[in-house]
């Protein structure tokens, strides 16, 4: 029996005892490893907050023993997460202690670039790195600031767009990496007046989930999302999940399998059923809170065989939209009265023109979209479509009210919650219009029980346009208001040609490869990438690689080695989550809420928990150094003072986006990022407030309950919501007029096809890419998994995350093949298979035969498989989905510019 005087742990392989030589001169045979502690340990618990998801507001406490971070847990004193912490947050020590990180500034020595080519990295000093980088950037700024491209992504969720580097450098070429596969904000911007929404689980009774997750996957979060979801399951809220994959909500409620990309047909047939068969909907909402009564010429056009609605409101001489008042029996301006006497049905004559209320036009349009029509398209039985329509109405409580803190709200308890799974398709915006109109019929927008807008603008600051229709302000407002065409384009990603775009980034590479064709008349000199992967997260194709190779100088502010670093010239080693200073603003609990969190907002601040493990620096301090060296420090400071970005939004008037003048940065002085943060905190909360964050990283602020429901600020007809997207029609007309003035068309686009999408009602046409074909009999889909969303925090190379996936849930790294199809094709569990996309490339991996997939849908979960030989080997596992996507203009949605998220595909064994 071995007798040991000290506890040891041995590392070895193949039966050979290996040892680690330590400074103390350890005996080679048994004591291979000595415990660090000798005598008493210094133990501290330090506050931080997690940055590993889309809602980085969970405060944590980290145990530091002798300067080493040893344990993380949720901070029970934080109102946001109340001590809970998810899989990702719990793995943060694997993010900190990761020997495959970029450990110091690196310089490429092999000038040949490629995914599988060794860059030949050598370590350099920070001085050399910053000198090289700053000279390149300065030259680019001097030649033309537009020649600098900047990509920022959710890899750094807690400091996403916090530091105004691109504003300081003066470049409009911000190629955000989030967005091209999640164009899911259109509906919220039109109907909630802001970019995000959430469902009120305090009062909801029936929730139809279409292409989104609640409580798990993307929505796994300890800032109460998951706990609220679990409470909802306990309470018996009925979740009906329309999804090609049987997600957790589908398993715990009801699963309605759908062929991916056909949600628009479901939405149209539900609208048909509610209006033409059930006949019950919130008429008062339609009359008082929507543009249903607004009069229009009911005629439509046929463009490419598609029925499109191009008419605009009938207006009086002052330009006000007209409605038909049934009591007065005449056409009057929309704001004549509250609207209860306005007609929503009928045909009327006004000044010799035959007109109808928008709702009549919608009703007539819907006649062909029966459940029987939708069944072969969606594969959902007509009876089920009818059942869902009836249940939505049955559970809606139309006509009810609830009093909250002395204010009477409409009370509506059924809703449709939509997400990117539904909207990243050719007809994805149409789906958002259709399901958005269902929410209007249910009367549930921004009232208890229904869908609440949440983000930086609440309805006390928002309001209607001159037609009385909701007009969002701030971030993403262009998706309603429409931008002007800019010609020649200022940006290379072609967004200047798409007025209502969401994210244009994947188009940038066309311009790099063929600048003349895409009207780019300036050079591209420098590309600065930070926390984003415009290859792996967008389109991983040879043409994208070629474009990146063409850019003369690429800098990556990098935590780890990834696909973009394969094309970079200099790596600026970034400090990790527990090594950095960050500030973040929580504006309303998104995705879902209860009374616990509906009005909860706040600010989070963290500072480094431990000294940097490697020779890394806080990214924002790197930016400040660069700005100083290129002579743009005052621009950086000015941008911070005035919060020219949306990421540190206002909480209330006293806590605005920017700094109060007495706390402004002196424009000529260089500050550390920590000092920038401290000034912001002092400006918001007073000079002593920063010390509070030494105890808990989250400082809460709450609205009253009634103020948390936006209807409180703009009740009744103070703002109206669209069922006919008239502003969109006008955006299209303006686009065409401006293109004609410039004598150009949208590059590489079929203009009839583009123009057809600017239609007032949800459009439908056959063969839009949602269908399967003989050669491509499947649709392939992706879903976010809770182990890592948006590739934030290097989670896909986190040792803990990978180990638990491999041990407990290895199917996450597989290609999910529906069981019946697998049997037919002869694919067995564990076979190596290839999935080929009609749009683009192919990807391969291990098959998982699953009963949880729609029979014609193949699933590739998560963000795995971004392979090069020159990265953390843990990342070289799993299957890469994005290789199947395309940035070809013919395949993107012409409104949002989103990529097709579910290509037609075939699968075979290899």
């Amino acid at each position: 029996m071995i007798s040991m005087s000290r506890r040891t742990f041995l590392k070895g392989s193949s039966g050979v005892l290996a040892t680690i030589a330590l400074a103390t001169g350890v005996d080679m045979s048994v004591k291979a490893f000595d415990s660090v502690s000798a005598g008493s340990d210094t133990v501290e618990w330090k506050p931080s907050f997690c940055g590993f998801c889309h809602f980085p507001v969970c405060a944590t406490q980290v145990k530091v023993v002798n300067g080493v971070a040893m344990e993380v847990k949720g901070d029970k004193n934080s109102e946001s997460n109340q001590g809970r912490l998810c899989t990702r947050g719990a793995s943060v020590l694997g993010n900190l202690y990761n020997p495959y990180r970029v450990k110091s500034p690196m310089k490429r020595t092999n000038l040949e670039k490629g995914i599988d080519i060794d860059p030949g990295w050598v370590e350099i000093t920070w001085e050399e790195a910053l000198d090289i980088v700053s000279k390149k950037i300065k030259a680019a700024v001097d030649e033309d600031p537009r020649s600098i491209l900047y990509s920022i992504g959710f890899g750094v969720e807690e400091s996403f767009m916090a530091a105004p580097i691109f504003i300081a450098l003066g470049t409009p070429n911000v190629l955000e990496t989030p967005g091209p596969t999640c164009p899911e904000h259109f509906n919220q911007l039109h109907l909630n007046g802001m970019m995000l929404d959430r469902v009120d689980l305090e009062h909801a009774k029936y929730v139809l989930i279409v292409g989104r997750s609640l409580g798990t996957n993307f929505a796994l979060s300890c800032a109460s999302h998951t706990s609220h979801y679990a409470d909802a399951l306990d309470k018996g809220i009925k979740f009906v999940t329309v999804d090609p994959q049987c997600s957790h909500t589908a398993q715990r409620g009801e699963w309605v399998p759908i062929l991916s990309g056909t949600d628009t047909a479901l939405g149209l047939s539900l609208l048909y059923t509610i209006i033409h068969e059930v006949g019950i909907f919130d008429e008062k909402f339609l009359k008082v809170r929507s543009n249903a009564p607004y009069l229009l010429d009911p005629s439509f056009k046929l463009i490419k065989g598609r029925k499109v609605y191009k008419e605009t409101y009938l207006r009086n001489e002052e330009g006000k939209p007209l409605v038909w008042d049934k009591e007065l029996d005449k056409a009057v301006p929309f704001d004549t009265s509250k609207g209860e006497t306005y007609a929503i049905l009928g045909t009327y004559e006004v000044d010799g023109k035959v007109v109808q209320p928008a709702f009549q036009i919608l009703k007539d349009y819907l006649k062909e979209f029966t459940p029987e029509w939708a069944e072969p398209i969606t594969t959902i039985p007509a009876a089920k479509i009818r059942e869902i329509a009836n249940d939505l109405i049955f559970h809606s409580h139309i006509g009810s009210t609830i009093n909250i803190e002395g204010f009477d709200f409409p009370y509506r308890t059924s809703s449709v919650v939509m997400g990117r799974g539904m909207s990243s398709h050719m007809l994805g915006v149409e789906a958002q219009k259709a399901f958005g109109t269902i929410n209007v019929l249910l009367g549930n927008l921004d009232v208890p029980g229904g869908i609440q807008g949440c983000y930086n603008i609440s309805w006390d600051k928002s309001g209607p346009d001159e037609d009385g229709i909701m007009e969002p302000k701030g971030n993403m407002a262009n998706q309603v208001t429409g931008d002007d065409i800019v010609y020649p384009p200022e940006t290379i990603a072609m967004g200047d040609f798409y007025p209502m775009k969401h994210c244009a980034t994947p188009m940038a590479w066309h311009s790099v490869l063929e600048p003349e064709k895409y009207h780019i008349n300036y050079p591209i000199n420098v590309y600065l990438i930070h926390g984003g992967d415009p290859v792996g997260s967008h389109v991983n194709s040879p043409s994208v690689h070629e474009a990146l190779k063409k850019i003369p100088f690429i800098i990556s502010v990098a935590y780890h080695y990834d696909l973009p670093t394969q094309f970079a010239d200099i790596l600026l080693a970034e400090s990790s989550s527990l090594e950095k200073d960050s500030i973040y603003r929580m504006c309303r609990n998104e995705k879902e809420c209860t009374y616990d969190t509906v009005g909860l907002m706040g600010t989070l601040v963290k500072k480094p928990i431990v000294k940097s493990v490697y020779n890394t620096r806080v990214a924002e301090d790197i930016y400040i150094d660069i700005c100083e060296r290129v002579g743009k420090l005052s621009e950086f400071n000015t941008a911070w003072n005035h919060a020219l970005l949306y990421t540190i939004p206002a909480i209330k008037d006293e806590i605005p986006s920017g700094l109060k003048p007495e706390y402004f940065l002196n424009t000529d002085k260089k500050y550390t990022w920590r000092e920038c943060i401290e000034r912001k905190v002092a400006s918001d909360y007073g000079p002593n407030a920063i010390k509070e964050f030494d105890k808990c990283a989250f400082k809460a602020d709450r609205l009253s309950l009634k103020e948390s429901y936006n209807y409180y600020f703009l009740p009744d007809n103070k703002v109206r919501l669209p069922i006919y997207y008239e502003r969109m029609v006008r955006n299209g007309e303006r686009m065409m007029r401006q293109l004609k003035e410039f004598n150009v068309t949208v590059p590489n686009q079929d203009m009839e096809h583009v123009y057809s999408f600017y239609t007032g009602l949800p459009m439908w046409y056959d063969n839009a890419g949602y269908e399967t074909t003989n050669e491509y009999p499947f649709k392939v889909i992706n879903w976010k998994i809770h182990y890592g969303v948006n590739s934030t925090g290097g989670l896909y190379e986190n040792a803990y995350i990978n180990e638990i996936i491999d041990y407990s849930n290895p199917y996450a790294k597989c290609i999910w093949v529906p069981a019946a199809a697998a049997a037919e094709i002869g694919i067995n569990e564990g076979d190596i298979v290839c999935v080929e996309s009609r749009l683009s490339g192919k990807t391969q991996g291990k098959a998982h035969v699953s009963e949880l997939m729609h029979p014609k849908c193949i699933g590739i979960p998560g963000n795995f498989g971004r392979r090069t030989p020159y990265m953390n080997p843990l990342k070289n596992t799993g299957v890469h989905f994005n290789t199947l996507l395309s940035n070809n203009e013919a395949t993107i949605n012409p409104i949002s510019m989103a990529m097709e998220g579910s290509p037609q595909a075939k699968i075979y064994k290899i």
Partner: protein
Amino acid sequence: MRYGMVINLKRCIGCDACAIACKQANGTPPGTFWSHVIHKEVGKFPNAKVEYTPLLCMHCENAPCVTNCPTGASIKEENGIVRVLADKCIGCKQCIVACPYQARWFMDYKAKGYFPSEGFTDKEKADYGKFELGKVTKCDFCWERVQVGEDPICVQICPATARIFGDLDDPQSEVSQLLHHNESKQLVPEAGTNPAVYYIG
């Protein structure tokens, strides 16, 4: 006083936060999972789902690991927690054989750290010094936390608040109330171990 846990399977979403929380807090090496979750697909399309069963030491009332331990290294404390005293463990693995729940883990000298070709990280160097070669380890209901009135880390951290910890002998405790009001089950009841971990939902 008898500590126990109730796990609500209706609330559990199979996220594995408990597994990682335990691992990083206790510093267990690769391949050792004091807390982990079984994910099992059951059923046929379209009535299929994944069953999640979080597992850990059951801290049984009639613990076969205790009765089978030849040296008295496996003990049942007065508060019900079953622990392993490393100084007495001879690594005979009788307890591993006896445990119906595969809840015990042997410190094999062939085990490596998470980055075999890169050496141990600072955290690993500090963590692994706690473990002894050739001994058995397992979940101890976060013995040290419980001594100061905290819940085990897997309970604290659970995003879905699916795990409740407390005194099964106190009828007013949350665990007792949950068992009183809900149908519950224990795993492998035929083994007669009477686990202190119950599953509801």
